[in-house]
């Protein structure tokens, strides 16, 4: 079986004048196409570092990342990244914002512009394409940010606490929204979050990391019995509580 993402023996140390800080040790993970992976772990454990390494933004101290069997060095156009906030540029219209990636990769072809326009139409932002980000609601902004990422047709989406900047209600709605778009576009996704419920509601597999230096503590296959597998409905499934309690115990949170 071939994997879309292979994480081979990743270790990461941060150097600072005061010494060496090991952030990640010995992480191995294989992900198949179309899978939705959530990574949870105690805060400050190196979740985001791991994501930056997969994105090619950081070079690991040792180990390698392979996308579609090919080892990467630096960023890769098959990987899209979504940050904690939407980071839409206030000085650009929505259309100019979603074109940012194409502009930087210098592939502003008619075909790609057409593709972006279709995405905007499908996800209800076409009428707002000439508006500025400040004129949009939080949910719409997050959607625009996703379209900006999808414009480059990535096969893998990395989401770094992508919903944590939103208030709770918006967050539930946006998680549903983004989840359905990711599934519809048939993308592979890796979501980093500190929210256990969010991870169970969205993931096919939940990866639990230990505290620093992070390593994989356990992997949970999430199998829920519910009619429609949307993040919102998933929270109603009878197994949900069980998963929650198990992961909660593993995270071993102390106040």
């Amino acid at each position: 079986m071939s994997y879309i993402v292979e994480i081979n023996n990743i270790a990461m140390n941060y150097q600072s004048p005061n010494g060496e800080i090991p952030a990640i040790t010995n992480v191995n993970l294989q992900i198949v196409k179309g899978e939705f992976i959530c990574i949870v772990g105690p805060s400050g454990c190196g979740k985001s570092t791991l994501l930056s390494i997969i994105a090619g933004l950081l070079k690991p101290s040792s180990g390698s990342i392979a996308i579609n069997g090919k080892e990467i060095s630096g960023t890769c156009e098959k990987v899209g990244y979504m940050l904690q906030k939407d980071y839409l540029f206030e000085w650009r219209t929505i259309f100019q914002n979603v074109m940012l990636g194409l502009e930087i990769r210098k592939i502003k072809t008619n075909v790609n512009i057409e593709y972006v326009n279709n995405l905007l139409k499908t996800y209800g932002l076409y009428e707002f394409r000439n508006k500025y980000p400040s004129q949009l609601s939080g949910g719409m902004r997050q959607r625009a940010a996703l379209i900006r990422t999808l414009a480059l047709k990535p096969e893998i989406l990395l989401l770094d606490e992508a919903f944590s900047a939103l208030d709770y209600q918006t967050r539930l709605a946006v998680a549903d929204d983004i989840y359905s778009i990711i599934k519809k576009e048939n993308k592979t996704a890796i979501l980093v979050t500190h929210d256990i419920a969010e991870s169970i509601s969205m993931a096919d597999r939940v990866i639990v990391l230990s505290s620093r230096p992070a390593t994989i503590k356990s992997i949970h296959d999430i199998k829920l019995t519910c009619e429609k597998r949307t993040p919102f409905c998933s929270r109603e499934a009878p197994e949900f509580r069980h998963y929650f309690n198990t992961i909660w115990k593993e995270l071993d949170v102390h106040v």
Partner: protein
Amino acid sequence: MSKHIETNPSKERIQYLKARKRKKILISLTQIMLLIVFIAQWEICARLKIIDPFITSQPSRIVNTIIRLYNEGQLFQHIGVTCFETIVGFISGTLLGTAIAIILWWSEFLSKVLEPYLVILNSLPKIALGPIFIVWFGAGTTSIIVIALAISLIVSILEVLNGFLATDEEQIKLVKTFGAGRLQIFTKVVLPANLPVIISSLKINVGLSWVGVIVGEFLVSKSGLGYLIVYGGQVFQLDLVMASVIILCIAAGIMYKAVVLLQQLFIKSHI
């Protein structure tokens, strides 16, 4: 978000708007009255010999001086020279300052190396360099512009560089995920995010450039408002000094307003 259009304002709303308008008018009226009273008492005191118009001048004599300058064809020549030097001073100060800030942003090494020099140059009163510039660039317009430039340059560099360095790291990370290099990080994020900073430094430089130009004219020039002030002082013609100062007030005010207008125009076009 969107503007609330009122078709049928409530009674309370009408009252609120009325009170607001009344307050605004009252402020403007008081401002104008203050000016009129000041000018009037100045004129009256001078006429009644309470103050000596030879030392304090007086409004009617100032107006006559301005008219005389105008009739001799000198008025707009002096204003023009000074305004030209000032405009060249603050525009070149901002542009050059931004250019140097870009270089320092690009090379962290260079920026670290030059940091102590910039700090010292920043605390040095640049006017002290005036005589050096006069020796180097001659007693003329060039020296005056260089003095104006020297005053605004270092502040511009520091301010714009600080803006560049304070660019949101996450916004930079975003364009990095799209594979942006150093140049694209600059053109797509750092520069557009800091245009407001550059414009605000332009605004500060207007004031600094005026200082540089007037001091420069004190030192060397044969024309300009600074020259008129110094010349008037030397020959004890306070009318000429006061007239020049008042013209300077008006010119500086207009120039500042123009830059503020430019800024508002810019902000509007960028929301």
